[in-house]
């Protein structure tokens, strides 16, 4: 049934690559808006802007890295290559936390929005042992959605990508409509300024707001994860990444700006589950349609985000297994569907377990999940940004279809200033998350620790070093990557560079 040696198939188009990222982002803004508003209050657009500046720096780093190394694994692979096996494992653990939380949180939210049309189901609750008010029907719906998405992902990247492409386009049209109608017909700049002046938060709340706002920007990682299955990755990935940076920034800044020019922040914060639905209901002309339309919009957005989570988690596990960081059985690819079937099944199961935990933990579930999400994202982004600089030093000869601009030259090596700023920005955010998020401060590092323990056990058992990296011929690996991607130009460039440096590749 499963075959080691079968490869992932290149079926992701330009629009597909873009929507893998946008799918994450569309839903993240949807969830983050209410949570950030509750913390950053009248300064919410500023919180999104500060988080956005860090995102631009990280985004540029990801654009360079994903176009130079178009393989499954994303930030984990870049870290493995730049900083070594151990830190690659830490980055992988942080990203895995994000992807599985993404699946659990958004499958749960999608089922919740579907239940907008079935109020009895939404209100249903029963007591199971020490747990009160557990909605078993909603939980069953969530598990069903995760199962369907897992099946779709096993079936093939084309099928799961098609779902994202269609729903992503629909969501973008609907979100653009809300922003356009909101700004053109209902927005009052004086009301926004009034809230800015009178409702500015405390420093601690503002920092908390920024640390939650960063979850709106988790999406570039998905583009990198799908790079190994993207057609012409060195041409497509830089374009989709750059477009994603601009588009996501536009949406992330437009939503809080338009919302605070129409509604008091308290109203939006009180609807942390569906703030965009509330915003839509206050719009002229379309307000009467807002309830059902926003429910459908939300259900689809969060569903494709969950879909992205399954793709991301499975490709990440595939990449880690290929690199010898975790059990190699997880890199098995289905011979017919060409998808990492074991990784999809295992991490869909982990996501389902997290959803179960969320259902049992009650109303704080969404905030808890968002905290964990922010911790995982910032830790992984910090390591990926470090890797950008490390790889500029270690592998300057690898052709990069895109290079981060504004470099300083040190001993013949170009060090990107935005990369340095990304390291400082994401490093600061990790500290802020740990200082301001009570649950993430404990559960986040604990999750990473569990992975490190498993990693140490696996490496010792398989006779591999724990803290040292495995010997690898990265030049040979890079030639293989470009060859398999059909990237003739990069391949030729690398061959010339290696020949010029007198590096022989076996």
């Amino acid at each position, binding site marked *: 049934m499963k075959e080691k040696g079968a490869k992932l198939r290149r079926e992701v188009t*330009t*629009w597909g690559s*873009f929507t893998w990222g946008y799918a994450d982002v569309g839903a993240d803004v949807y969830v983050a808006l209410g949570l950030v508003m509750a913390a950053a209050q009248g300064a919410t657009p500023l919180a999104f802007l500060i988080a956005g500046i860090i995102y631009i720096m990280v985004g540029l780093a990801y654009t360079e890295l994903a176009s130079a190394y178009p393989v499954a694994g994303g930030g984990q692979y870049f870290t493995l290559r730049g900083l070594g096996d151990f830190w690659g494992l830490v980055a992988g653990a942080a990203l895995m936390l994000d992807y599985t939380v993404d699946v659990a949180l958004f499958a749960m939210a999608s089922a919740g929005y579907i239940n907008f049309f079935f109020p009895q189901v939404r209100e249903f609750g029963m007591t199971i042992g020490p747990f009160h008010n557990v909605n078993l029907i909603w939980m069953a719906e969530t598990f069903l959605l995760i199962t369907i998405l897992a099946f779709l992902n096993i079936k093939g990247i084309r099928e799961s990508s098609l779902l994202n492409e269609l729903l992503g386009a629909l969501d973008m049209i609907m979100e*653009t409509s809300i*922003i*356009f*109608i*909101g*700004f*053109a*017909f*209902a*927005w*009052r*700049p004086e009301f926004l300024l009034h809230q800015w002046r009178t409702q500015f938060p405390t420093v601690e709340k503002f920092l908390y707001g920024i640390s939650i706002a960063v979850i709106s920007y988790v999406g570039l990682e998905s583009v990198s994860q799908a790079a190994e299955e993207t057609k*012409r990755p060195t*041409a*497509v990935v830089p*374009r*989709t990444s*750059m*477009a994603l940076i*601009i*588009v996501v920034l*536009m949406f992330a800044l*437009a939503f809080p700006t338009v919302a605070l*020019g129409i509604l008091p922040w308290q109203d939006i914060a009180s609807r942390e589950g569906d703030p965009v639905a509330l915003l839509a209901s206050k719009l002229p002309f379309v307000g009467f349609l807002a309830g059902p339309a926003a429910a459908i919009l939300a259900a689809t957005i969060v569903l494709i985000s969950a879909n992205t989570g399954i793709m991301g988690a499975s490709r990440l596990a595939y990449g880690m297994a290929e690199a010898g960081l975790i059990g190699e059985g997880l890199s098995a690819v289905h011979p017919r569907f060409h998808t990492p079937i074991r990784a999809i099944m295992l991490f869909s199961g982990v996501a389902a377990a997290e959803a179960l935990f969320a259902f049992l933990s009650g109303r704080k579930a969404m905030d808890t999940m968002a905290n964990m999400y922010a911790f995982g994202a910032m830790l992984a982004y910090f390591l990926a940004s470090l890797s950008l600089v490390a790889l500029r030093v270690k592998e300057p000869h690898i052709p990069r279809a895109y290079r981060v601009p504004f470099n300083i030259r040190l001993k013949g090596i170009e060090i990107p200033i935005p990369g340095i700023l990304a390291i400082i920005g994401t490093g600061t955010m990790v500290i802020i998350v740990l200082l301001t998020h009570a649950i993430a401060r404990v559960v986040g590092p604990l999750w990473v620790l569990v992975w490190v323990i498993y990693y140490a056990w696996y490496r010792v058992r398989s006779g591999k070093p724990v803290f040292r990296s495995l010997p690898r011929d990265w030049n040979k690996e890079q030639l293989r990557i470009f060859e398999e991607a059909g990237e*003739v*130009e990069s391949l*030729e*460039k690398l061959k*010339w*560079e290696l020949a*010029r440096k007198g590096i022989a590749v076996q």
Partner: protein
Amino acid sequence: MGHPLGVAIAFSFVVILLVVITWMLRLPKPAPPEVVKAIYSVEAVRRILVPIIEGVYSERAVELACRLGERQNAHIILLHVIEVPYTVPLDAPLPELEKKGKKALETASFIALQHGFKPEVHLIRHRSASEGILSLAKQSAVDQIVMGIGLKKTSYGEGIGRTVREVLRRANCEVIISKIPVGG
């Protein structure tokens, strides 16, 4: 309609979004592999050696080398070899030849500087010009040698002198000969 600023933001938002998406989707067509190989084999030339052999032809060779290396910002190496006869020691004073060589290199450097290059200049002594060229080419790991010559009758046949023939025969890198008829 609402506030004029809101209307302006709304339209700007849609226009920017459409421009970005359109730019993203309009990918340039990939070049066929054989074309890429041909293009890159030229782009990969990063170190070009121009031996200054004779007057106007060598100056034209420098101009050609600069144009060939412009796109990839190649490193230009200019060389003049003073051929010292076996009858005198290698370090014997040869002021006339030295002066002539320096002058030729100054002119060649001027051309390279005009193109924005900072050329590496070598004035060396050797028993054989071709040996001097080949030895520097190897030592500096050059990718290409560009030589300019005039068409003239020699004892080795028409047009190509001994130095050029030796370089052509023994060089381990690409050699481009720019041959111009005398008076051309």
